[in-house]
């Protein structure tokens, strides 16, 4: 069964595959681990796939920044419910480096995180298939916020206080 995920608040079939996965015909995008990207950037660029990079929590966004114009996707790994580095990585990608492609949260992603992830700029969420339907409501957990946010690339909304 093809992998499905949440993208822009809709359930869609994933059209990307990771470097260590066999590509299905519809999976026209390739997600490369950051280390491999650094080492073999030119080889991947020479290929025909759309390209994305997978960042681990310890990897600095600014090292990827120069390559962002060449990427259509950045995936950020959340290895456990308690590791929150990816939230900062997401904000930096969107706000500081103006990354406009798909920003995907992967690995440990559950409904309870979606509201915060979206507010940090993530627009795609790779999670267990059976949780996708139920997770759609999580974007509306709160209908007000204190902080300005960058979800969906929006500027600060008048409701936001800070």
């Amino acid at each position, binding site marked *: 069964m093809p992998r499905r995920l949440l993208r822009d608040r809709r359930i869609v079939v994933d059209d990307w595959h990771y470097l260590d996965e066999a590509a299905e015909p519809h999976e026209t995008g390739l997600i490369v681990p950051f280390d491999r990207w650094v080492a073999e950037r030119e080889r991947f660029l020479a290929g025909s796939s759309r390209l994305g990079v997978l960042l681990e929590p310890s990897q600095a966004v600014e090292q990827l920044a120069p390559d962002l114009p060449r990427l259509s996707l950045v995936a950020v790994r959340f290895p456990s*419910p308690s*590791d*929150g580095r990816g939230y*900062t990585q997401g904000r930096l990608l969107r706000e500081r480096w103006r990354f406009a492609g798909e920003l995907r949260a992967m690995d440990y992603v559950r409904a*309870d995180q979606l509201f915060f992830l979206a507010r940090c700029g993530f627009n795609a969420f790779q999670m267990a298939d059976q949780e996708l339907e139920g997770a759609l409501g999580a974007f509306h957990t*709160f209908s*007000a916020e*204190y902080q300005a946010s960058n979800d969906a690339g929006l500027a600060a909304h008048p409701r936001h*206080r800070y």
Partner: protein
Amino acid sequence: MYRYDAIDKTLVAERVAQFRDQTRRFLAGELSDDEFRHLRLRNGLYLQRHAPMLRVAIPYGLLSSTQLRMLATIARRYDRGYGHFTTRQNIQYNWPKVEDVPDILADLATVEMHAIQTSGNCIRNVTSDHLAGVAANELEDPRPWCEIIRQWSTFHPEFTYLPRKFKIAVTGTPEDRAASLVHDVGVHIVRGPAGELGFEILAGGGLGRTPIIGQVVREFLPREHLLSYLEAILRVYNLEGRRDNLTKARIKILVRSLGIEEFRRRVETEWQQIAKEPLRVQPAELARVSAYFAAPAYRQLADMDPAQGRETAFRAWYRHNTQAHKIPGYRVVYVSLKKPDVAPGDATDAQMDLIADLAERFSFGEIRVTHTQNLVLADVEQARAYELWQALAAAGLATPNIGTLTDMICCPGLDFCSLANAGSIEVAKLINERFDDYDYLYDLGELDVKMSGCMNACGHHHVGHIGILGVDKGGEEWYQITIGGAAGADASLGHVIGPSVPKCEVPETIARLLSVYVERRDAEERFLDTVRRLGIKPFKERVYATSPAA
């Protein structure tokens, strides 16, 4: 005090709904223990030794009488008729049921309260000076800034899963009544080069296993940049704080390992790159929030001495449990929660109801919680102090011991907490039995005794003039004693005097320490000052001279 508007109300109501759903999913087996743990810890709910513990936020320690009555109602309806006030100005309930917690949160929401940010690895409830707004030498009331920090930090999307908990304290006077030097971040209201108000920012303080005094990151920060600067600190911490070892995950370890200069450089570098405009505290917003903390309608009064001609008991109480107020004719009154036979910081539902009534009759309907686990009625007319005392005394709330040896800070200890090695409440009782002569206590003067049941230092033992730490020795409770710690503007860490002592000898050990002080103090010198002047040697020698165990 601050009142919720539509945004605040919406957020808290939706939080209750969210947690109700999470609790339902947990009880239905859809969430594992570990997954639910991360969610309940966003709502103050711990699972402890005997029962769950729910910690309710009292932002910067300020309560209305209505709120305090609700805290009493919750104690009665869902718990065993009491609550425990903490060193971070919150309240804990020790016997709620997990399935009741959504209802408790819903009840709290009706009085604009919640349990957000009282646990978990997020920005915790901000604390402040319990004399905010009434201290004569205050540069500016810190509470509007606390409220602004509260709102900014509530559900902050980026900083909800930090390496470890993160505590901020804000003060506005040279004295530091909020222990800000042992917080992850201390925010001090100060004047800048041109006399303008701004902040001194400290970071890296903390207690626990590795006690460290906070260091200055920035000497002067223009006030409108407070939130962007805090974001810079938190961002550096979120990315670089250790996550491999829970005991090394606080920001103090990061600051110490980088050194304050390098830490400062990273924070400043980050801050230079942060878009400051969205986070700038606009004058209109500051004015909006500040208006909620406007001074109450004080009457024009002259100072008077209500103790004149009154009985000794009242005079002692007035001298020890009340304090100067910046407005003539008014006085700050402490409600002592340190009655000898009661666990320090505990109050019953009936006491809370009574204090709420008294706050309405005597102090504009507001109550403050102190870092030292007492309550304060901050705006009492001096002429009515006697009447207030009578009411407090009748309810066991007028123990005249504020600032003395028996005004101990104490964690819940073995009786409740699953981490503790020691029954700190029991030791507090032993100390109270030994030191029951008030003339002696008054002669000893200002003395901070702080006791923690384990290394986590919830009772702040490191910064007690006398600190008592429970340690486990082969299944028995022993106590390590430190002296020379302080939590105020002159914060310092206590020194261990020597081998730990068994529980029954804690009072005798303290008595020996105090005997050295009484013999060798200079006039007006506090115990702390004598320790600082003499060093620990003479104290140590006296305590272990002929071992009490021999």
